[in-house]
């Protein structure tokens, strides 16, 4: 309940206290949760992280993954993370910046990882996503294709798939598509 008479009195007090109030920059609940996620990151040894806008902008960052096993061993793959202010209610937007021949990543960098979309839950965190992305490189999956051709090759001819991956990572053509070198 508002006491209107207190409001009248308060008008005067406000004038005094306003001087002492610091310039306020808001930190949303989402930013705080992200602060916790980042401060508790436990990165796999394949992964490094960088904050392009300095220590105070945790909402935008990049990670690079250098798989140490599987088809993609030796390649370096960059991902950008854009964390919305509604985090962790909504998941971060993650894109792959390195053009990659991969059944679950399309040529525009869209990533098919269930926890980035349909299976995201607020209890998940940035670490979970990073492990999920690492998993995509050790276990590419032809059942959730975003790059249809790559998925078909992986399913029907794993040996050819391996050759194609090596060729793409070395900087070359797979079919009509050119991939920049990422080794």
């Amino acid at each position: 309940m508002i006491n209107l008479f207190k409001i009248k009195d308060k008008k005067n007090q406000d004038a005094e206290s306003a001087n002492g109030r610091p310039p306020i920059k808001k930190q949303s609940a989402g930013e705080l949760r992200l602060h916790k996620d980042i401060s508790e990151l436990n990165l796999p040894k394949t992964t490094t992280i960088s904050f392009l806008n300095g220590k105070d902008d945790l909402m935008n960052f990049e990670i690079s993954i250098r798989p140490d096993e599987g088809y993609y061993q030796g390649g370096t793959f960059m991902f950008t993370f854009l964390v919305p202010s509604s985090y962790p209610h909504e998941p971060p937007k993650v894109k792959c910046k390195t053009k990659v021949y991969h059944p679950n990543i399309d040529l525009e960098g869209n990533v098919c990882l269930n926890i980035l979309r349909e299976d995201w839950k607020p209890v998940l965190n940035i670490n979970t996503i990073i492990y999920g992305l690492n998993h995509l490189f050790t276990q590419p999956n032809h059942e959730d294709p975003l790059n249809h051709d790559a998925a078909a090759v992986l399913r029907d001819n794993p040996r050819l798939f391996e050759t194609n991956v090596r060729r793409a990572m070395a900087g070359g053509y797979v079919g009509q598509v050119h991939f920049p070198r990422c080794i």
Partner: protein
Amino acid sequence: MANSFSEPARWRDLDKLLARCGNIVGPGFEPSPQLRQEIGEFARVLVVGAGGLGCELLKDLALSGFPNIDVIDMDTIEISNLNRQFLFRLQDVGKSKAEVAAKRVMERVSGVNITPHFCRIEEKEIDFYNDFNIIVLGLDSIEARSYINSVACSFLEYDSDDNPIPETIKPMVDGGTEGFKGHARVILPGMTPCFECNIWLFPPQIKFPLCTLAETPRTPAHCIEYAHLIKWDEAHSGKTFEPDDPQHMQWVYTEAVKRAELFGIAGVTYSLTQGVVKNIIPAIASTNAIISASCALEALKIVSGCSKTLSNYMTYNGVEGTHIKVTEFVREKDCLVCGPGTRIDLDTSTTVSQFIEILGEHPKLLLSKPSITHRGNNIYMQSPPILEEMTRSNLQQPLYYLMGKVRKDTVHVSGMAENNGKKSSSLRKLCVVFKGIAAADVATQMDTAGNF
């Protein structure tokens, strides 16, 4: 104009509520024939949003005896708004919603003064919001609600026993509608749950798996999301999709139609495209009217005390018949936004590394390996190594300086806390107070700082 606002016949019903006692009045209610005049004189209401719900709210509040209203909205009027946003006419398309809504209500309700603010809510100084006695929200996004909530809660102060100080409570009434469903809630920060305490009430937006969109579309929405999320990037390298740009929307619609034809899926329309891309559920005028009426009434109850307020969350469902339910949600004890935080008294000379020691020994916290953040300024980060390195030099600095020489402020720390003998990761709100600084000193220091 002011005369007609004091015209008694027009306010007969309102005066009955405000001038007479009853057995369901709010605590401390003092009925009086002057109460309506006093509300008119002292109560300032901010309406956030001038869309479907906002139009209704402005009309309802103006007719409920609030003569001083401000309204803030960054949107301009679109032709598709006209079916329910009844303050707008065809010739208003393209103009500011806040400005037109304010003008129309002032034309129709004599004696009411509505100040429009045609801008984003984030553009206003925090103190702008402190000038209002009550904030009424007619919004459709979680982000905007969460922002206003954090602003309103930032005015809240607690006394030494962790009881909220009444004068610092900034009440909010939040309305929301989606099709035939809606809610109205009362938020008294520090007393009832804030928006963040119960954020789980809002289900996350449904997201389709990208591979379904790319490979096996089955519904019109799949085709639209394919065009929006995958095809757009392919065709416009690097250009961001702007949902408010009609040309962009038209492009997505055209691509979605092609996609739907390819897979033999019927039902892609332009308005469905807008709906899916912007996550809009068709608005129903009567739902807005019902929710707004409830919100305006709660605002009147909070300001006047003429009745007990809603405790604290009302849901309305008009899908089949009418179902209304009130649920009393409870506060999140350690809410980072509305909770009191643990009070810590420090010397102005206390360095960050000394502060970290204090956190580890503090009986209520026992927090080890803390990372510290103050209003978006990351003072010290334990991890990852790259951030630890960037913040390490702060360890030997006095916290007082790093916090901009304020006497008292909120600081958040994450780290490992001991809970029933078990260590678990946690995020804590602290209220840091520096000893031996009077409010007046701070003002002088800030003035001096400004002169350099």
